[in-house]
Every structure is written in C-alpha cells, then in structure tokens.
C-alpha cells in the first residue's frame, strides 16, 4: 500500500462512526452532584464567608498597628538614649576644659 493510500485510509477511518452512548445512570449522578453542591453552598454561605473575611482583615489591621507601635516606641527609646549619651559627653567635656558659664573670663 502506498503512503498516500495509507494517509487517505487513516483519514477515512472515522467516517460512519457511531455515536458513543453515555452512562445510563448519568442523570442520577448529576442529581447527586447537584445535591452535594447545595450542601457545600449551605455550609459556606456568603454571610459566613463575609464575616470570616472581615475578621481576618481586622486581625491583620490590628497586627500591623501593634507592630508599628512597637517598632516606633523602640526607635524613640534608642533616640532618647543617644540624646542622653550626647549630654553626658558634653558635660564631661565642659568639666574637663572648665567651661562652666556662658561668659568668658580673660
């Protein structure tokens, strides 16, 4: 058999194909799935989903606020400390060089 004949025969192989039969219990299976879907929908009703989402957003917002507050107060503490250290250094410097007043004694 030539190659062209093979090709044509292959293309013709599905001519006159008979329609495949679906599962005779298809309707029962569909109804079962529809019932399952309804149950799932009832369990996850939109109001419950909405409340859950709202609660998650609220928790997230609170966490962000707490984190920001903690990190801000930490920074303030560090800056206060650094101001204190600078003042101490200045005092020891003035003591060392006897610069105690605002006027100069020549």
């Amino acid at each position: 058999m030539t190659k062209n004949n093979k090709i044509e025969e292959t293309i013709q192989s599905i001519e006159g194909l008979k329609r495949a039969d679906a599962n005779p219990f298809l309707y029962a299976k569909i109804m079962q799935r529809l019932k399952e879907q309804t149950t799932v929908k009832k369990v996850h009703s939109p109001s419950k989903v909405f409340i859950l989402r709202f609660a998650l957003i609220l928790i997230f917002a609170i966490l962000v606020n707490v984190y920001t507050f903690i990190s801000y107060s930490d920074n303030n503490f560090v800056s206060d400390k650094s101001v204190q250290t600078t003042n101490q250094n200045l005092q020891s410097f003035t003591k060392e060089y006897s610069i105690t007043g605002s006027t100069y004694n020549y």
Partner: protein
Amino acid sequence: MITDENLLIKGLTKGDEDAFKTLVDDFKDRVYNTSLGFVHNPQDAEDISQEVFIEIFESVKGFEGKAKLSTWIYRITVTKSLDFIRSRKRKKRFAFFTSLFDDSDKLIHDPPDFTHPGIEIEKQEQASILFKAMNKLPENQKIAYTLNKIEGLSYSEICEVMNISLSSVESLIHRAKNNLRKLLENYYNK
C-alpha cells in the same frame, strides 16, 4: 414526557425536575460523544457531561432562546471540553515536578491510545493514529472537524455552534484535512 422545546425550556426555567430529566435523556449521548471527541478519555468525557448539565440547570434562566437549545448545549459542551484540555495541558507542564514526589502522574505523562467505541474494530488502529493527529490541530480547526466527523453535525449546524459563517466552516474543515494529511505524512515517514 415533554416533547416541545419551548415547553421544555419553560419547565427548566421553573426548576422542574421532570423537564431536566427529559433534557438529560435527550442530550446525554450528544454531549458525551462530543466531549469524548475532544478529550479522548471516557471518564473525563463523563465528568464533562455532568458539568455541562449542571451548568445548564444553573444557567437556563439566562437562556434567551436566540439560539436553538441544541446549539446552546453544544456551545457549553465545546467550551467545557476545551477548558478541560487547557487545564490538562497546564497539569502536564507541571507533571515533571510533581512526578519527583509522586508516581501517580504516569497517566498525565503517557496517555493511552484512544479508541472510540463507535468505530469498527478493523479501523480502530488507524483511527487511533488519526485522533493523535487531531490533537495537534489548531483549536478552531479541531472544533469544526470534531463536530463534523465525530458528532456528525452539518456545516450549517457548526456555523450556529461556532457563531461563524458557512464559508469559514468550509475553510476550517478544508484546512484541518490538509493539516491532518501533513501530520500523517510525517507519522508514516518515521
């Protein structure tokens, strides 16, 4: 038993279970055969058929009657089947990674040869080669060719399902045949 299409649609809109059963009984073979023509796997075709009828049940209220009921059902079937093929392709891309942890992905890697139950036994081997070649066709050509050759729809019915002109359908099927010839030539040259 509801015979008139308008009565059937009215019943479906009201959520009548008898009307829905009639619809399933009337269309189940058409829906199953069409999806089987696309996905080439009986179990997947059955799952898609179920999804198609669930979609019909849930969205029949939005059916305006502009197209025939059968056209609407074929459209849903084609869309669901193509969605399934796309998701299977995505899974196949990731199958390499999943197979590193799990051996159960062998089916995704090596799908078995497909034999349509409606093909005569002596033609099944050649048909299986043709189905593999059909998988490589561009999407629109595959839709037109499958609806015509597997489901037996006329060109005018395909026009309605695909929402294109008659000449476009003719062109798609002509190009599909030419592409199949090229693909089969490469196959037999190996």
